């Protein structure tokens, strides 16, 4: 680990590792610099021009693209900076549908944070505003909705699809005020090469990309995805005894903040109305409901008469290791057989 670099931001001493951008160094030290296009998982591009700072001896600089240097003296706010930012912000949000209360991202929106910091002048905004917000909603994907009326063209989704997912199915399309994010041929996203991983949805700073039927979880728990052998760390949200959300554990060494379509959107089976919620016993050829005591007594009585190699157990690679340990111990120690296996070969 190389030595930390010390610089001064707004008169406060700040330390950061070499290569860190001034923006990230400031944010990590609790100093807010408004920004929209920067994301910790992605290479900085410096296109929103909101994170401008003054560095002693230099012209205003985008802090997301400028690495820390020993002894730099940085100011994040001044009359000049505030004016530039305000103009830049107004140009960014002229086309933004700011009906915030009905937006899923309300209170978590980066644009709200930026506007509350920079301040917006309604009068000057009206001057540049486009007459109507007319991008149709793209509801083709079952898991997320694309609302280009809320897009601020930060390009985080474009870079995510390229840098994280590696597919690059979306990009900037058209020119000038008509610029928007689009798939090849400006078709609905479902008709593109998109694999619905939702990486862009997880990183969109505004309400342009939001999960369908999103419910805010009451609480979240860190656990592991139940699908494939990768074993991605997921944070599962729940409310009212139902699983309602899933997101990647940022620092997990397996998935490093990423998930696929199943881990992010595929946990709904837990809440499925068809879940087996009762015990069933076959009586006169029909499966009928029973209580635990009755079922356990029946299973115990029957299994007691099939000890040895006339018994076999097949368990599941979906269950926990503790579940697996207990059932192999049961087969070997109680039933007296090594007829125990699972679906590893399938």
């Amino acid at each position, binding site marked *: 680990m190389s030595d930390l670099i010390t610089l001064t931001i707004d008169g406060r001493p700040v330390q950061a590792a070499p290569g860190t951008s001034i923006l990230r160094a400031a944010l990590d030290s609790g100093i807010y610099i408004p920004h929209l296009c920067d994301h910790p998982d992605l290479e900085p591009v410096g296109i929103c021009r909101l994170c401008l700072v003054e560095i002693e001896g230099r012209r205003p600089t985008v802090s997301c693209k400028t690495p820390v240097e020993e002894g730099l003296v940085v100011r994040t706010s001044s009359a000049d900076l505030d004016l530039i930012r305000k103009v830049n912000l107004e140009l960014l949000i002229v086309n933004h549908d700011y009906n915030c209360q009905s937006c899923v991202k309300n209170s978590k929106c980066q644009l709200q944070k930026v506007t509350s910091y920079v301040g917006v002048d309604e009068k000057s905004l009206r001057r540049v505003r486009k007459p109507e917000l007319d991008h149709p909603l793209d509801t083709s994907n*079952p898991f997320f909705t694309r609302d280009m009326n809320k897009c601020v063209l930060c390009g985080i989704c474009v870079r995510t699809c390229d840098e994280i997912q590696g597919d690059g199915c979306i990009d900037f399309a058209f020119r000038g005020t008509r610029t928007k994010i689009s798939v090849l041929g400006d078709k609905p996203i479902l008709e593109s090469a998109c694999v619905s991983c939702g990486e862009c949805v997880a990183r969109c700073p505004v309400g342009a990309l939001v999960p369908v039927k999103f419910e805010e979880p009451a609480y979240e728990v860190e656990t592991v995805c139940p699908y494939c052998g990768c074993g991605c*760390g997921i944070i599962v949200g729940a409310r009212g005894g139902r699983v309602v959300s899933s997101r990647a554990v940022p620092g997990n060494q397996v998935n490093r903040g990423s998930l696929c379509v199943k881990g992010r*959107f595929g*946990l709904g089976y837990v809440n499925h109305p068809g879940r*087996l919620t009762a015990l069933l016993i076959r009586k006169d050829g029909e499966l009928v409901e029973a209580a635990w005591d009755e079922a356990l007594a029946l299973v115990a009585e*029957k299994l007691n008469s099939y000890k040895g190699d006339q018994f076999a157990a097949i368990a*599941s690679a979906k*269950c926990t290791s503790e579940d697996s340990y*207990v059932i192999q111990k049961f*087969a070997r120690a109680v039933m007296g057989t090594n007829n125990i296996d699972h679906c590893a070969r399938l």
Partner: protein
Amino acid sequence: MAGLATVLGSGAMTNTIAEIEDSSCILAIGTSTTDAHPIAGYRIKKAVRKGARLIVANPKAVDLCRFADLYLPIRPGSDVALLMGMARVIVEEGLMDQKYIEERCENFDEFKQALDAFPPAFVEEVTGVPREKIALAARLYAAGKPASILYCMGITQHSHGTDNVLAVSNLALLTGNLGKVSGGVNPLRGQNNVQGACDMGLLPNVFTGYQRVDNPEARAKFEKAWGCSLSGAPGLTHTEIFDAAYNGKIKALYLVGENPLLTEANASHAAEAIKKLDFFVVQDIFLTETARLADVVLPAATFAEKDGTFTNTERRVQRVRRVIEPVGQAKPDWWITCAVARAMGAQGFDFNSPAEIFNEIASLTPSYAGISYARLEQSGGIQWPCPTAEHPGTAILHTEKFATPSGKGKLVALQYRPPAEQPDAAYPLVLTTDRSLFQYHGTMTRRAPGLDGLNGEELVCINPADAKNLGVAGGDLVDVVSRRGRVKVKAKLTRRCRPGVVSMSFHFAECPTNVLTSPALDPVAKTPETKVCAVRIEKL
């Protein structure tokens, strides 16, 4: 897994998923990584972006091919020929790591002799891939330092799956790629906890940590810990259990979390076997097609409703935590099994929590001995082997020596054996199975709202040339017929399948692909050959 254990001493991924990113060459064989292991797929794409060479060997032009430097469209079941053919080029051109072979490997001379049986013309004929391409693959792989091999069910689900695995490890040993950062032999394990299940002794021949049941010392240790006497005779494997049930030798079956009517090769045989049982208990989260045949159905909790651990494909033990209460009468699987054991009057099943179970596991399993829930709370998981509480865990296996008795990695002289079932006049096409990104085995994904919208029906993928000969157009309903059964399915024309090969997934109960597949078993691993079966297509 049985294969790797023989020659390397351990049957798990030798390296970590994150390391893939820094490989200089990746050979992805029998894996559609971006579909079946998407997150590992991200790492491959990243590696390619960083300049790694990617070689894809697969009968189907899987999504990964978009990123590949070289694609080898091999015939299903020709993997040994391909890999031994590559090894021959490496040896002939002197591209192997001589020093590594001398210091860390054994049996090189015998192995080298076996390569005589794989001249380029033969390999070309068996694999259907031009010899120049195979030589290029060999050179790319040998030049990649480090080079990583990734494989999946496309290697193991064959009647000679163990040979395939040995052929993979041969290549890695020959080029000195085992025990190195970003190198290795990396089986991508299918299910979330298939590694953990194997580690826990959910296998007929081993206790936890691969301690063999026929080893008297191991048995004595478990007899002492569990306070009972134990059988030293290895039990029956999954597929053999259904055969034994069919033949009346198995009379009672306790089946947890599985739906063999969908996943078992030759699935109609599994259904008949189940009907012959005297007593059949199923424990699951849904009333599956299989559970409907049970005498007793016990409702189990999902991963979101219980505590415990999963061990991933890179041997990383991670904590699973309860998010919500189990629904209705459902209970965690460990709780149910313990309750059954106690109802039968057994001792040693008084666990109050998964943590207590884990402590017993750690006390009996050297590779898990240093892991505890307390340590897992403080880290992002620990990779076994982790023998002591101070040990940091092991990211890369075999860095100094192999876990074999001699400490050396064994190069194995292999012969090419064709798949058990060959196409003929009556069944002229080869069916191979694969997995969709949007589905899993089906029990869960089919019930996750939305996933069906992305891929909601089975399709049989056919090369347009074959389709033309059959008079089949895209979207036509056809019957796919094998020696064991037939299913009705829509056709999809795609050049992703090479001529003569058709592919289907196996996620859909209404179209149970595995009634078609072959039950021919690998003699060592007892894995069924679901990746190769002869079929014909009948236009409806």
